[in-house]
């Protein structure tokens, strides 16, 4: 049985970057990818805007993915596509045995370390509460995107989009360009979920209305969606019945958020952060199970692929150089009144080294100061012009100190 140094689960942007950086550390690497081709969701994200940070260029999803694939192929990384992991066992030597379902049948490989780079999944109609029928014509935005961009099928002539996530807005533009009518985007909250620039370039440019504090309350249709009911909501998200109106359409497209995919993590007994829905990790992005690492959207849902690559690249390196040792995990404290989440959640002070910290504000704030404290002393502080829950912030903290306490704090508005 072949034994690898690093086995990367997932061949999307996170897996590709993790594999490449692990290979740079002279590790033997295997990528296991569920789909026929490497590249992950980027294959169907044909719109541009990727790579502005990493490549200083505005690339489309396929261009971004293929740069990493070409780089990885040169690095002599092994990969298996159309395959997935069905079981993982811990070995007595600290490594892992992975059972794979491949095109040839069941196979087993061993690996010293595992990088979970399985990305995230879309929330489906089962996770949002819309009453009524369940006819054909209810798609997640990603499914609609797969139909249009990979298969070349138009899933709708006239649709309503529920939720204002980025993929939903991008699909609103895409479907409009291909001749469909997007009646409107309905967002239950009082602010768009996706980036402001996507509201501008995907909705405003094509006169697609964005209805805030409004949601879809019912679906009608026998075999196929025939209409939906939309309703404004009050501050507690309760529908205001007098505002209900019926919209005839053939499809309802859901863009209601993403959840990290951690089915394999469950099998390994990995602890999940309730705030991110991804594993709890230390500054090397290692989970509570020694030798198992997590990166990219499986760790927490990122808003830019550039951040995914950067984080995965660090993780791949850490997985390649990992040596078992005792851990002294210090929790990175924060108030959930100020922050939606903070990743990593722990700092292993026996390992030391730099800390790449990602966080999101709980609500929109302007001119607020954020400070990182080690042993109650300010290690870094920075004033942010504007912070939004939809926009991830990242800081790098370098310290020589033996960390006993660590905390991220938000100060009040600055003058």
């Amino acid at each position, binding site marked *: 049985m*072949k034994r690898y140094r690093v086995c990367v689960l997932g061949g999307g942007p996170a897996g590709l970057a993790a594999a490449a950086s692990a290979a740079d550390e002279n590790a033997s690497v295997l990528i296991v990818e569920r789909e026929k081709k490497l590249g992950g969701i980027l294959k169907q994200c044909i719109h541009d805007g990727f790579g502005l940070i990493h490549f200083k260029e505005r690339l489309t999803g396929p261009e971004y993915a293929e740069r990493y694939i070409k780089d990885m192929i040169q690095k002599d990384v092994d990969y298996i596509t159309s395959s997935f992991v069905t079981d993982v066992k811990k070995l007595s030597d600290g490594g892992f045995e992975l059972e794979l379902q491949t095109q040839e049948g069941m196979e087993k490989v061993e690996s010293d370390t595992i990088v979970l780079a399985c990305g995230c999944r879309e929330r489906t109609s089962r996770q949002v509460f819309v009453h009524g029928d369940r006819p054909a014509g209810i798609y997640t935005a990603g499914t609609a995107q797969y139909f249009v961009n990979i298969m070349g099928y138009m899933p709708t002539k006239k649709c309503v989009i529920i939720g204002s996530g980025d993929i939903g807005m991008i699909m609103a533009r895409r479907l409009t360009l291909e001749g469909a009518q997007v009646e409107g985007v309905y967002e239950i909250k009082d602010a768009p979920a996706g980036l402001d*620039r996507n509201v501008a370039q995907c909705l405003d440019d094509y006169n697609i209305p964005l209805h805030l504090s409004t949601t879809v309350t019912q679906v009608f249709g026998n075999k196929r969606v025939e209409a939906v009911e939309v309703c404004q909501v009050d501050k507690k998200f309760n529908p205001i019945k007098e505002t209900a109106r019926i919209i005839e359409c053939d499809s309802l497209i859901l863009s209601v958020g993403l959840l990290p995919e951690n089915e394999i993590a469950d099998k390994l007994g990995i602890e999940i952060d309730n705030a991110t829905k991804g594993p709890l990790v230390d500054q090397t992005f290692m989970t509570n199970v020694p030798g198992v690492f997590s990166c990219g959207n499986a760790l927490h849902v990122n*808003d*830019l692929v550039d951040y995914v690559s950067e984080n995965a690249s660090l993780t791949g390196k850490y997985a390649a150089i990992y040596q078992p040792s005792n851990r002294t995990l210090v929790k990175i404290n924060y108030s959930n009144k100020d922050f939606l989440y903070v990743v990593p959640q722990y700092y292993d002070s026996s390992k030391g080294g730099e800390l790449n910290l990602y966080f999101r504000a709980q609500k929109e704030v302007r001119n607020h100061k954020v400070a990182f404290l080690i042993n109650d002393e300010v290690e870094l502080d920075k004033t942010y012009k504007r912070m939004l829950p939809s926009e991830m912030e990242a800081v790098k903290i370098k310290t020589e100190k033996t960390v006993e306490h660590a905390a991220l704090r938000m100060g009040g508005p600055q003058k």
Partner: protein
Amino acid sequence: MTKEMTCIVCPNGCLMRVEQNGDDIQVFDALCKRGLEFAKNELINPTRSITSTVATAFPDYPLLSVKTDGELPKDKIFQAMELINKIVVKDRIKVGDVILSDVFGTNIVATSDMTLNAGEKRVDN
């Protein structure tokens, strides 16, 4: 005249205040100078790049993703889409290859490499 405008040049998406008095355009609240350039263009001659797909003659690769290699006038987008939707690619195209030239001042280029083998199995024993 004062208006608010979201810059779409990068993911920062600065919400800018734009003041226009005849030819004089001033931009406030942009994090970088690309905001000024964007705002000026937006008021005088708004342009956009577009991305789409074209059909191919290959059953294993039915659609090829494409983009304009520059920006075209915003009001020509749907005319450009009509041209894009008539294309059928009959060769194995590489990323960056021009598929249709001079579409309202831009070219339609491939954003994916049909010769790249990004699948199946590659394990060295």
